[in-house]
């Protein structure tokens, strides 16, 4: 399918906070209560529409385990957006956010849009981290914040789409250099026909020449 832009996302956070479940809910609209351990990295992709433009999200879901940290760090490069996830029922996952944030900022480009996500909002009775605490952390570090539930799908769409909207706005403002792939953004085939200099570009793109 043709698209105007491709955004690369990463999902990071402690093990067991629901990163893979968020991805599965977003790409497949389903919830898997017992999810296998993620070793290294997993991929997902979905098309969304912002401002009438087709945008393809290419999502890299990383392993949360400490043992895999040095490997997963190498996947931060070239991401335009990051979902930093903690579990509202486990205080320690919230406490580790600073480390994750430092890691992300150090290994990715400075313009990366980071969305802070408090997951498992359906488990209100077991909540250990107040919503206000999440909001405060996000405000302090300049992040966007949202509580989600991968189980009920509450706010999952919004989390991914709002991040994309932020990135899209940054593109409009000229903050992102869309010609540098290290920024995690690629122009899709939809852009090519409008480019008068490359009339043949549209033809090759329609053959599915677009890479993700």
């Amino acid at each position, binding site marked *: 399918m043709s698209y105007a832009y491709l955004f690369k996302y990463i999902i990071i956070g402690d093990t067991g906070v629901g990163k893979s479940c968020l991805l599965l809910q977003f790409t497949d609209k389903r919830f898997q209560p017992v999810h*296998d*351990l993620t*070793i*290294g*990295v*997993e*991929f997902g*992709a979905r098309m969304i529409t912002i401002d009438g433009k087709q945008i393809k999200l*290419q999502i*890299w879901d990383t392993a949360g385990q400490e*043992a*895999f940290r*040095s*490997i997963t760090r*190498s*996947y931060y*490069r*070239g991401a335009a957006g990051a979902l930093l996830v903690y579990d509202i029922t486990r205080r320690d996952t919230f406490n580790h956010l600073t480390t994750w944030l430092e890691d992300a900022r150090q290994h990715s480009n400075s313009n990366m849009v980071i969305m802070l996500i408090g997951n498992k909002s359906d488990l209100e009775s077991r909540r250990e981290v107040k919503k206000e605490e999440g909001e405060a952390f996000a405000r302090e570090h300049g992040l966007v914040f949202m509580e989600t539930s991968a189980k009920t799908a509450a706010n999952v769409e919004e989390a991914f789409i709002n991040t994309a909207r932020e990135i899209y706005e940054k593109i409009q403002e000229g903050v992102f250099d869309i010609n540098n*792939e*290290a920024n995690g953004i690629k122009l899709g085939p939809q852009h090519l026909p409008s480019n008068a200099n490359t009339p043949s570009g549209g033809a090759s793109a329609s*053959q*599915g*020449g677009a*890479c*993700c």
Partner: protein
Amino acid sequence: MLNKFKNAFFSVVNNLDTASLDKNNDVGPNGEPKLPLKFPYTRPHFLQLNGEDEIQVAGDHAIRPIIVPRDITKMPWNSGYAEAVNAGKSLRNEDQARIHVGYLERRSRQRIPYSYFALFDGHAGTGAAISASNELHCILHDKLMEVIHHLLPTPEINESTQNGRNQVLWFPEREIGVESFIVGALEATFHEMDNLIAEDRFVYRVTGGCTVVVSLFICGKLFVSNAGDSRAVLCRGRKAFPLSNDFTPETERQRIRKLAALQPELLGGEYTALDFSRRPNRRDIGQRLLYREPHMTGWAYKTVTPEDLKFPVVYGEGKRSRVLATIGVTRGFGDHDLRAPNSSILIKPFLSSQPEVRIVDIEKEAIYDTDVLVMGTDGLWDVTSNERVAESVQRSLEQFPAEDAARYRYRFTSAAQDLVMCSRGKLNERSWRTADSKSATIDDISVFVIPLAAYKEEHLRWKQEMESQSQRQSDHQVSVDIAVNDPSTVESPVMAANQPGRMTADIHTNGIPPVDKAATLLDPEEKAGVVAVAEEDKDTTVGDAAAPPEVIVDPLQPVTDGTSDPEIEDKNESNS
């Protein structure tokens, strides 16, 4: 002469890129219709990457993600696998891998299970590696079926003895062990695969060539067959025991130069089989220079003639050594159309598809929980030594204590991932660097980590089952005699022997038991030691010239034979 290398390099790279890029075009550069692909490009089936999209993401040259199987229940014995694409040296990841679990079955009565793990490292295109990953195990299955009656445990052989078929009086008595039949099947398979690629290229588009390393677990033993510069290493504790030799221009220098001397027409008048201590130039003509003939390993003097200025058939040292200034690996499949730069000289006659097969007797060996077989393409070994690999594996396994059941089964996957990480390293500014800031590989990397204890357990269970089955069968023989018309009675022992959990999807079942030939069972005690090398045929033939005699570094000599066995034995003793 640098140009020769340059040309070789660019022709190899260009071949690939055009081969991969033009997949949507049906016409060649001159407008001629292109042959179809036999198999589409893909990644190993057990990774379960869905569609072109995920294959592209996995092949991101800038990030080089380390890809592991999505569902490890698809991996025999929770074996580990990991891969990473090159840093841009070719468009596609040219490594391929295959796992096949099947069984040999004779008249639905007795089954011999086997597990097959293979790595193929492609060059100058993806075609040969893709073909081999799709077809080699099928050919092997057929070859093994042809000798199944020699592989079954003793009762079956006795039966054929009773039939009197093997009492062929004029046939000289020669003891051929079970192992030799499996080795023979492997060797015949490699030869046939290479021939198949040769024939296919008139009907299909098969580009490039590939190396091959196969580990076959069957009858309680591990057979490692290698043709190329991928490597299999047994990692035991923090010690490494190589189970294969690398076949490169450097290690096969003698074989190739001998062939060149025997068949000088293969050199097209442009290359020489002589080896000089340094390349002679015009000014050296008439001077004496140190040199050696193909039949020499040491050095002597020769007065240089204009003839001697030709380019050496094998040139360069180590990883840079090349045959006919072109190829850096001397065994494997494909490359039938590969030619020396700016000439019509074919490279293929100097290459061989013959594997070296080594055997580990897993049933007899004391095997420990952390004993693993590591198979990797040269992307792994170029950067990480055998010993470092063994260390890394043990470190990885230690991170997964047995008490943590949920994570425990991922330990071999994690070990494989860590190994790829060791050799891929991290992107530092513009170059890939290892953890100790050395140059990392920019090549494709693929690694299997296979636990040996799990196979041993599986094998012993099967053996027990076979024994009780043959027991039941002899009981059953009595009941058939009594109630010969009752089909349920006849079927029951067969059903009991079925193994419903096995993957049987792509097994060829055309194995009609051939006429039994004279054979006797090898005394199992005869094969002592862990590693045995099976490469008996050392005849020199065109295109498949065999091993040189004694040289300082002889790739075909079992380097581990003398050294590894005692150490393994020692360890066994201290542990028992």
